[in-house]
């Protein structure tokens, strides 16, 4: 599974999933901490729709961690102050880069969580659609 998709599921989904994956790796492989979870900033680059140019919208607080498994470095980045999740994401990232055997079994769980998230989102959208305006044209 591509990183963009996987990190979205792990961050938006149940944080126990990231904890479970990272714990599994930590049990079976030596994980060297390169950068302990630390807070920092990410500057948001945005496109405006009037002239299609770019500008900086502002910064967002993030937590970042870096680990090494064998020769592979993993990075965990998440918006907010979430040290444990950033550390878990770094381990998962390194495990995926290293192609560790444990990662082979993750796809099914990630896809199941993705389905659950999609269902939750559809229900939220349905609730929002209750606020959609139905215009009636007044006749003379």
């Amino acid at each position, binding site marked *: 599974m591509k990183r963009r998709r996987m990190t979205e599921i792990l961050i938006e989904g149940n944080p126990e999933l990231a904890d479970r994956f990272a714990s599994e790796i930590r049990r079976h492989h030596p994980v060297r901490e390169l950068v302990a979870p630390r*807070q*920092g900033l990410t500057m948001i680059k945005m496109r405006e729709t009037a002239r299609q140019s770019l500008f900086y919208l502002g910064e967002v607080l993030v937590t970042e961690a870096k680990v090494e498994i064998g020769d592979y470095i993993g990075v965990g980045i998440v918006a907010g102050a979430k040290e444990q999740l950033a550390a878990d994401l770094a381990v998962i990232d390194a495990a995926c880069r290293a192609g560790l055997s444990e990662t082979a079994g993750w796809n099914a769980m990630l896809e199941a969580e993705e389905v659950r998230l999609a269902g939750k989102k559809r229900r939220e959208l349905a609730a929002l659609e*209750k606020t959609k305006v139905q215009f009636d044209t007044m006749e003379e």
Partner: protein
Amino acid sequence: MGYVAVKGGTEAIEASISRLKYERLKGGEQVDVSAILSSMRLLIDQVMSEASLYSPELAALAIKQAEGSMEEAVFLLRAHRSTLPRLYYSETVEPERMAVERRISASFKDIPGGQLLGATHDYTHRLIDFSLLGETEEERKRWLGKYEAELSGLEDASGDGSYPKVVEYLRSEGLFETFKPDDTEPDDVTKNVFQFPASRSERLQILTRGQTGAVTALGYASLRGYGQVHPTVGEVRVGNLPITVQAYGGDDGDDSYYIGSIRATEVESFVPMPSGGPDGKQELRFEIGYGICYGQNETKAIAMSILDQCLEHPESDAPSHDEEFVLLHVDTVESTGFISHLKMPHYVTFQSKLDSVRNTRKGRDGHES
């Protein structure tokens, strides 16, 4: 009279800070940061927007520490921000990826996708609800349970929360000018002091982190005649924008890291502008003013769209078209900092002015006698 260095006041300052804490605590009741987070959504949005730092948790903490003072809370966040390293720049956030929770148009009744009211105070009675004085946790839970039960009976929506832009519909009809994506790297006013004339990216960055009241006041001034922009709001939308970054070896979109989403309000205003037609006659065309800010703050985003369009036309003599006038006066920390510094000791400068007045009078009195 020469300059005299003075020191002192340390004990008084310490006592003053204790007094400040006493004022915060003496009422006996305290609001937890979690309660601010859960119930002061729009205040948090405003603090984050003016601080230019997206962190609801830190904003809630700053609000508690500042006893609800906007300017203090923003100052605290800006100061904290300056202690943190900037680790990443996001990939370009494309606005059409917003998961929309609210979108309305004042220009068209029927817009593709429909008008979605979402959560808004717009249609509420502006009457104080005295029932909130006695609102209990049990009542809150009962209301939530009932509302969620109603929603559980709904059929799931089929869309993904994205909606077509009203402006793109008009562009496709050839009514608005189209622009190709311009990927020129933006300037950053937090890294470099900007100079006039400011670039478009600098203008937008300053406006989006501007003080809500200041941006609103100057936008309003433009409508009242101190500017030449009076738009129709094409679209206001509120929703969540996904943020991704590239890190360590990634080089394509699928390889990037999703880090979370931010809530934002985005506005496109349609501004009629006279221009020369092909036959030499004056004709009207539309330009777009752009506004966006963290959180849900529609008044600020609309006002920003007015000022964006004003600053695109510096040829007007009106104050709201003067970028120095607008851009140098909308920042919360700069304006409140400068105004409040006036209460700090100015003993020497004021004595100097007094001496000047005394000497002038002495000379005048001597001359008259």
